[in-house]
């Protein structure tokens, strides 16, 4: 089946079970939110899928097995991710950041020459993530929200089919959140999107399906309404005074 399929995934650090047997299926075109209290294993799950954390079990994306592959090989299969703290290249311009993200398949001759024009996919991404106006600005000078958009733009030009976004709207203003939500909607037309998020309001507005994790396991899964109605979820998560 196409999309992301995770079977019995386990990640153990020095005897501590960070992810203990997770099964997860995210079909193509879904916008899946993964929520859960701190330490539930959400980021570790993404680390395992992208090759950063060693894991056992099985992870396939569009029928390619991911576990055991190196990070950059997994990226070449169309799996892209962002990080909680944005990790754009601060001393390069927005354009340079995007151009690099678009280029892993370039040959030595292209690499040794200067970039003579803006590649069309980079131009499209600039418009999609609304950064055309700050194209030649150093990425380090961008406000937080725009850095996160730049990260998403980098995934776009990288030709990622699966977007794994780790808290993309943390620290954003309301307007920025709304804009990011719209962006996720646009992305989902051609991509599969998985979002780790704490912001319940954001989740209710933009999630198509939700997976709740707790203590390294999947606690509940379904639509926003189904998950909210699940007594197990209410007990560990929504039961706490989250403005419901």
């Amino acid at each position: 089946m196409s999309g992301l399929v995770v079977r019995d995934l386990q990640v153990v650090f020095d005897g501590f079970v960070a992810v203990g047997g997770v099964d997860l299926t995210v079909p193509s075109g879904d916008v899946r939110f993964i929520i859960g209290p701190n330490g539930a294993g959400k980021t570790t799950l993404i680390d395992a899928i992208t090759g950063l954390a060693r894991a056992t079990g099985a992870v396939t994306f569009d029928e390619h097995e991911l576990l055991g592959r190196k990070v950059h090989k997994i990226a070449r299969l169309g799996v892209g991710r962002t990080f909680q703290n944005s990790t754009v290249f601060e001393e390069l311009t927005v354009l340079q950041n995007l151009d690099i993200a678009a280029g892993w398949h370039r040959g030595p001759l292209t690499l040794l020459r200067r970039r003579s024009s803006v590649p069309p996919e980079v131009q499209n991404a600039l418009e999609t993530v609304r950064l055309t106006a700050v194209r030649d600005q150093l990425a380090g000078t961008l406000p937080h929200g725009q850095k996160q958009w730049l990260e998403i733009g980098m995934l776009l030009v990288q030709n990622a089919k699966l977007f794994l976004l780790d808290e993309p709207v943390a620290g954003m203003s309301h307007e920025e959140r709304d804009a990011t939500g719209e962006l996720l909607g646009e992305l989902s037309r051609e991509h599969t999107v998985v979002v780790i998020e704490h912001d319940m309001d954001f989740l209710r507005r933009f999630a198509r399906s939700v997976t709740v994790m707790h203590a390294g396991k999947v606690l509940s899964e379904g639509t926003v309404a189904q998950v909210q109605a699940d007594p197990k979820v209410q007990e560990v998560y929504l039961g706490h005074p989250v403005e419901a």
Partner: protein
Amino acid sequence: MTTLQDPPVAVEASAAKAPRRFHALIGFGLAAVVLFALAPVALGDFRLGLLAKYLCLAIVAVGIGLAWGRGGMLTLGQGVFFGLGGYAMAMHLKLADAGPGELPDFMQLYGQLDALPWWWKPFANPAFALAATVLLPMLVAFLLGLLIFRRRVRGAYFAILSQALCAALAIFLIGQQGTTGGTNGLTDIQGFFGYDLNDPINRRMIYFIVAAALLAVLGVAWQLMRSRFGELLVAVRDGEERVRFLGYDPANVKLVAYVVAAGMAGLAGALFVPAVGIISPAMIGVVPSIEFVIGVAVGGRASLIGPALGAIAVAWAKTALSEKLPSAWTYFEGLLFILPVVFLPGGLASLAMYLRRRRSTSTEVTS
């Protein structure tokens, strides 16, 4: 100011690229005038010979600027590659001095050898020796780099490893006195491909070759820095992990910069031999390797011209100070390393950039 008559902002973006290239051409032209016209006229034979030596150090510095300034690899062991290039050249010149079938002088002295060791033999061939001065360091850097970068050795560990390799090579050379000249190194080199190095005219010729090599190396570094590879290298420096998630293997990117820097150091070593007339373990060990880096730090590691100018300035200061106050140089050298690292991480080049930026903001205000 001319900026007042310049066309307004809209044209600036498209015009900005052409002047940058133009500036670079002017820079290269100026450097060529200084190196090929001014210096030979202004300096006597002795000082010109010293300048040739400094320019060799500047060639090493350009490579370090690429690997360290742009690639983030603190190459504290460039003496290894400088030494490989230098010894490859010196071995050939010693064999040429000795004449066909003869052993170099030092082997006859304390080698107790009947025949040339097998690994000396290919260096009798000038084409092989010349190619080896650059290709041998690059090959060694390639093999080392494969091991080091694939295993993700970086930061201080990389620096310490480089330094250790440097010490190892120097110790090895000292231990093999019969075939390498030991502590003395390969000395008293008389000729350079048929030209007598005692003749001042030929020594001037060596200076011009070194100056041309420096310009060529700067040209290579300039193209690498402005290319897409140069942008990628900075990305690897600032976010190695992030680059991995974009589908690149950063080990390969670093490897290219490391190998190019090694080739430059090898070339510098090869030119150092005819320029100075000697190569010895003391010139390629830990201390000279650190001195290479000091020049780069002072000049500004991430800029194109900074490392070269810094290397020349530090080498010149070393000569000048050791002539007057022999014991003070070591302290001064320590200071030279600490000051830029603490107060001016971008080196003198960043000072120039800072002044330019101030000037441009003040013209903006006035216009």
